[in-house]
């Protein structure tokens, strides 16, 4: 294994982006160390599946994300989504990748259950645009500063956010076979 770069002889043109294999062992530790140096007060852990993990508060998201992208090379946002933890509030999860070093990072942001607001990262990773819209649409998280925060999968004016745990679909059901009384 190790983090040797992928063979580039097939690549034509003047491409600068190298994609490294997933880092493990010392490379992973130094990756975690690099983040700790930037943010001594934040806790960075190494998960058993070789992902780095860190949690930030919503007000610190933007500065942290800026440094992560510009100085630590997390240029690739894999996935962005929200989770509803009911009374414990909501959570936004960012999955980031450093293509050059092969580092994978999961960044979680906890939000209050009432009126959840979080700054948008669309200007850092444009791919967050639709993914934030989806998180707003399905989980109901407000992304402040998003250029175009409207529903994307559900139709406009849909009541509620379907992936909230307390969401109840009120539409009539098509008749089904009756459930057995035993259950």
């Amino acid at each position, binding site marked *: 294994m190790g983090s040797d770069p992928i063979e580039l002889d097939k690549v034509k043109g003047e491409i600068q982006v190298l994609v490294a294999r997933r880092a493990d062992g010392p490379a992973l530790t130094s990756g975690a160390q690099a983040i700790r140096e930037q943010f001594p007060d934040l806790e960075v852990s190494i998960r058993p599946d070789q992902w780095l993990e860190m949690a930030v508060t919503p007000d610190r998201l933007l500065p942290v994300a800026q440094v992560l992208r510009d100085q630590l090379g997390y240029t690739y946002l894999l996935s962005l989504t929200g989770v509803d933890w009911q009374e414990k509030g909501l959570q936004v999860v960012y999955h980031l990748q450093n293509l050059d070093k092969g580092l994978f990072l999961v960044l979680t942001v906890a939000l209050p259950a009432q009126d959840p607001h979080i700054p948008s990262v669309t200007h850092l990773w444009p791919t967050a645009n639709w993914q934030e819209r989806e998180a707003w649409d399905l989980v109901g998280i407000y992304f402040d500063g998003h250029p175009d925060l409207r529903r994307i999968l559900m139709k406009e004016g849909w009541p509620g956010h379907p992936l909230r745990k307390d969401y109840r679909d009120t539409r009539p059901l098509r008749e*089904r*076979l*009756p*459930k*057995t009384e*035993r*259950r």
Partner: protein
Amino acid sequence: MGVLKNVVNSVVGIAKGHKVTLKEMLRPTVTVMYPQERLDLPVGSRGIPVLLSDEQGNLLCTSCGVCERECPVQVIHIVSHRGEDKRKVLDEFDIDMSRCMFCGICAEVCAFGAIAMSDQYELDDFEQGDLIYHKDQLAAIGRTQRTPITNYGIKTEVGVLDQVRAGRASAAQTAAAPATSTPSSEGSRSE
């Protein structure tokens, strides 16, 4: 000269394509005239799930209900009661084929090998309600089993689904007649 070279390249590129189409035109067709000819499905190909019986013609199903629980779309409906020897007797076993997604999980989870995926797949019907297949229909298709269970599937006789569907009217009549099979309310589900 560049233009001329361009033109020649284009003509060659286009001519190659025409060669391919001409060659394929003279080849025999690869399609099958579907209703008359049918491709031979491999055993295990997932058509509708059916109920299997033993040599005496008794259903293998013990009405344990695991298929009903595991079905991702909840289309299986089982009603059973305790018989005199404390064993469960299967009264009803319905599968709503209009919702079934033929995933084959029911056949997979059945510990008794009582359900198998058949090779019957032509489910067209005039009434949505007719797409709910009952115990007797599923068992009738299962009794025409031609191959041992492979990959949770069996082959059945060609056209058995049509026969079962054609027999629906008469089956309903016999069910309405008194003193047939189980004492449960079979008539109530026949609608």
